């Protein structure tokens, strides 16, 4: 565990990308199989074992230390793994510390109720850094500022290989990747993998900036709605199907309903949505499905996933990426008519002649599920990455509301010394005159300088403290931007904002002049 813990520690503290790559390369060079392979799997999120739940870790630590002191410590540190690693009472003379492979392989075989006991024994045997690495690993998601892509880049640069060569075969390989390391070290040929159902890097759009339209001619472009879901790639062939997120992470296990519907041979680009009776559900419904390792039948039933298709990269053996968008669109439509797959439909083209037509459509688009428009050049080939020019996203304007800061909470991670999460409200008539009712929470949209000033303002205007939360006197107006507002039974105000962020801090504006709840009501899309 020690070399792995040291690697994580170095990665955490090394700010520069190149420095991180050097640490990765040095680790792969110095560490034998299968340890390095499991480390690579941990960094790329490719490990699967029965992870410990945060709740189990908390129960374990609370059985060993005063729960009150633990909670305060957690509030202060802001990270569960780190808090437990630091607070865990040493037990000198405990067992031999485990290595990474032992932890991974043991957990893979472990039954659910064996996990806490294993964890406790390991925590006793490791030092604080080792405990931290173990907890990061075992609670899933290292979150140390290293993406799967960066880890693979480190691997490629270590031996001077091409990243794309690794990416191409990646999804056909399994931890601890001994044949991959053998190939990179020149001891074996490149691993043979099943070439179907693998990830193809995506083509991404740039945001449309002011003045861009004036330089473009409308007849060169096709327009589609920009759907409020997540961008995915469905790769199917040879009886296999895999669903990938934008960054190439496999999410098949989270969306078995989509994967089951992919009994064809094609690679498709589209938007993943939750759809009920043909209507796109609020993003929050899709959120319920994301980030789950397994899904229940109930969830599948209540939150049915749907794929809205807008591009096709492969049909059977044919690589369509060199074709123009207009040609690919024809293939996509023909393929769809022949195949008629379940849980999928085509994202329609939005007809227009001039940019003004399109601007008018965009201004009216306020129904659920639409975030704005996509503009794509008719003649654009499918290029990996984010080429400047062929594709643009043109989000609709945000809604704005002047709200009053009510509560602030200490942030986590880098912001754990700042009050950086803000709950804001609007005015309404209460039993004893005007009162504020909370309407949302936001924790970004401001600069570091503004954060310092907000933090100071919160400290100077605190009226009550509840653990990491402070109530403040109604005196600061926050202009909040949000994409939509929906009815919600879970919120006191009966309304929930979509994607709220701080747009402007109105240091100048008296709190009494902030907006009223009725103003927000009027913006609800029924």
């Amino acid at each position, binding site marked *: 565990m020690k070399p792995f813990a040291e690697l994580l520690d170095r990665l955490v503290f090394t700010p520069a990308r190149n420095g991180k790559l050097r640490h990765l390369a040095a680790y792969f060079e110095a560490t034998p199989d299968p340890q390095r392979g499991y480390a690579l799997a941990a960094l790329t999120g490719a490990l699967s074992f029965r992870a410990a739940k945060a709740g189990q870790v908390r129960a374990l630590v609370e059985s060993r230390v005063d729960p009150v*002191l633990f909670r305060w410590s957690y509030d202060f540190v802001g990270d569960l793994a780190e808090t437990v690693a630091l607070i865990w009472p040493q037990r000198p003379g405990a067992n031999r510390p485990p290595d990474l492979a032992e932890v991974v392989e043991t957990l893979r075989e472990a039954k659910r109720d064996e996990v806490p006991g294993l964890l406790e024994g390991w925590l006793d045997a490791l030092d604080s850094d080792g405990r931290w690495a173990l907890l990061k690993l075992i609670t899933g998601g290292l979150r140390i500022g290293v993406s799967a892509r960066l880890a693979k880049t480190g691997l490629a640069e270590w031996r001077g290989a091409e990243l794309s060569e690794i990416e191409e075969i990646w999804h056909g390989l399994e931890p601890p990747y001994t044949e991959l390391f053998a190939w990179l070290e020149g001891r074996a040929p490149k691993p043979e993998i099943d070439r179907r159902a693998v990830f193809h890097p995506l083509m991404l759009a740039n945001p449309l900036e002011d003045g861009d339209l004036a330089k473009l001619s409308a007849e060169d472009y096709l327009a589609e709605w920009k759907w409020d879901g997540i961008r995915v790639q469905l790769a199917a062939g040879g009886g296999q199907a895999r669903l990938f997120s934008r960054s190439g992470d496999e999410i098949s296990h989270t969306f078995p309903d989509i994967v089951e519907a992919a009994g064809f041979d094609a690679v498709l680009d589209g938007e993943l949505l939750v759809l009920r009776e043909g209507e796109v559900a609020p993003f929050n419904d899709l959120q319920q499905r994301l980030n789950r390792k397994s899904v229940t039948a109930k969830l599948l039933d209540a939150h049915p996933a749907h794929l809205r298709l807008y591009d096709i990269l492969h049909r059977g053996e044919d690589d369509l990426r060199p074709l123009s968008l207009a040609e690919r669109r024809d293939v996509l439509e023909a393929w769809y008519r022949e195949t008629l797959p379940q849980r999928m439909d085509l994202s329609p083209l939005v007809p227009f002649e001039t940019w003004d037509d399109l601007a008018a459509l965009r201004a009216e688009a306020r129904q659920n599920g639409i975030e704005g428009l996509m503009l794509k050049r008719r003649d654009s080939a499918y290029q990996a990455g984010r080429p400047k020019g062929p594709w643009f996203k043109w989000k609709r304007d945000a809604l704005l509301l002047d709200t009053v800061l009510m509560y602030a909470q200490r942030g986590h991670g880098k912001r754990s010394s700042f009050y950086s999460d803000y709950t804001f409200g609007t005015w309404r008539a209460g039993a004893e005159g005007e009162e504020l009712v909370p309407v949302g929470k936001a924790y970004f949209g401001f600069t570091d300088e503004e954060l310092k000033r907000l933090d100071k303002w919160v400290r100077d205007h605190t009226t009550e403290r509840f653990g990491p939360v402070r109530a403040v006197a109604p005196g600061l107006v926050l202009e909040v931007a949000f994409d939509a507002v929906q009815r919600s039974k879970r919120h006191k105000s009966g309304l929930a904002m979509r994607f709220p962020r701080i747009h402007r801090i109105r240091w100048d504006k008296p709190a009494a002049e902030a907006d009223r709840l009725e103003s927000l009501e009027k913006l609800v899309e029924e």
Partner: protein
Amino acid sequence: MKAANSRTEDWLKVTPKGLYCEPGDFYVDPARPVARAVITHGHADHARPGHDAVLATPETLEIMKARYGDAAGRRHQPLAYGRTQDVGGVTVGFAPAGHVLGSAQAVLEWQGRRVVVSGDYKRRPDPTCAGFEVVPCDVFITEATFGLPVFRHPPDAEEVGKLLQARETFPERCLLVGAYALGKAQRLIGLLRAAGYDRPIYLHGALKKLTDLYETLGVPLGELRPVLGLAKAELKGEIVLAPPSALADRWSRRLPEPLTAMASGWMTVRQRARQRGAELPLVISDHADWDELTRTLEDVAASEVWVTHGNEEALVHYARGRGFAARALSLLGRGEEEQEGGDAAEAETPGEGAA
């Protein structure tokens, strides 16, 4: 100790200016200028300028003079460790606190009750100052800067070892260590010397005055050189000490590929260390960690514990669980900024509020 009928809080009070001893008519570490001040040590959140009469250890008075010059107080009354002085019927004495050179616990006795105001303290040995002395008392006023059980400072030698290891790994780089001007910088030098490091150690100009003073007061620190005027190449593989605020400053551009280390108790928490931009966090603190704080409560065996600056609530909770009458004391000027890591205060005033 014989307990009198009067309650301590009737004669030792928290006021906006600081902790006030009514019968003696003096303040301990007041936040604003007062007529009579008893000062525990030279850090700026304890020793402020502008008092009329100042009672402190000789070393603390020297430190105040070095920092404040004419504003260090109109009348200075030095009082060595172990001696006492009567101030309006209150007996005042100093016992070593082990925090920085000259740091003391103020021992106040009145009508048969003894109160110890610990100031800031640590229990582990420090080559640059006298070690903490346990003074049994009725009321113990303790700091709680690191008053959470996540703070368990590792042995100093281990941390210094990391610095020396990094020097070997990156011979082409310069090791730039952020350390507060009073106490931390000199202790770090002392620890490096104790680890056998005998090369010259290079100093940012802001560290010179107090480091010179330490040597004048009898703390040998080996060969020290200013960074000023040296060529980049001369600093490869060398250890450079600077106040934390200088780490990200343009000043550091004169150094060859500096590897930034930061010596502070806050470095225990990774996220905090990252926030401070440390590439090599060194957990070296001049404050007691959780184990030292709790051990000290048992050692002084006071029936009452007052807890100030830091994570008061956690230590109060712990002390009550151990059967002490405990309460949190909210002293202005040493409040939240320290608890939160003192980031803002430290960044603006290098050398103050050492942790």
